[in-house]
């Protein structure tokens, strides 16, 4: 018997830990890591429900989530590198370049 409920609870907990990370982190890369946690929680949910209903859709969309997470990580890290080069900081709340 597959403990699907336990896996869904794990995915909820992973999502909430990610929310906590986004709210508390100052380091831009730390925020990105928390976003990866949230995306993983979503993928886990898709696969678990796909298993419950015996459909391949869940796995297909988890695959799309993984691909989009790769894009997001690449662009996000490039932005952080560019930000570091221009503003000399990686702390998200110290960047004030757009302040008039």
């Amino acid at each position, binding site marked *: 018997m597959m403990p699907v409920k336990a896996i869904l609870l794990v995915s909820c907990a992973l999502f909430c830990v990610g929310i906590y*990370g986004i709210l508390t982190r100052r380091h831009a890369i*730390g925020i990105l890591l928390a976003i990866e946690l949230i995306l993983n929680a979503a993928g*886990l949910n898709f696969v678990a429900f796909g298993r419950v209903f015996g459909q*391949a859709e869940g796995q297909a969309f988890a695959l799309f989530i993984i691909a989009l997470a790769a894009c997001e990580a690449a662009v996000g890290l490039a932005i952080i590198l560019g930000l570091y080069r221009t503003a000399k900081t990686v702390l998200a709340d110290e960047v004030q370049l757009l302040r008039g």
Partner: protein
Amino acid sequence: MTLASVVIPLGVAAMALLVLASAVLVVSLRNIFRAALSLGLVLIGVAGLFILLEAEFLGFVQILVYVGAILTLVVFAVMLTAKAGVTGAQAASRQQGPAAIVSLALFALLATVVNALAPSMTPAPDPPTLRQLGQGLITTWVLPFEVISLVFVSAMVGAIAIASSKSSRSGPA
């Protein structure tokens, strides 16, 4: 009582413990490099859960793409920005109390919903096969599949354009 009925719940419990413990480390460690390494443990644990859910292909994709590519990218970014001199005190978290309250309340809400759904969730007798997934990706979901590859190419080109050192000529200097 088969072997699988003992092994699968034990494996799920072990992987859940690994995932949750390292997820807490990811958001609480002050050293961002160590946080990135704990993210690797989370990703491996999620891959283990995928395999236990009989989605072996996704488990291996998760290890290849996440642990192999994304984590390497994150570690490189941590190293390239290490000169910013963010000390432990500066990288310390803020607003921990309110954030903990918000995320705990959200978890309570989600857990209530999952509990309410739980009785109707018995796994289907036959799991989706890799053949179904592959056929679906080139028939039913061929449009999202191709759009993802377009998005991927544009994201990579954009990342290179943003991160290349020539782009700094548009800086304030």
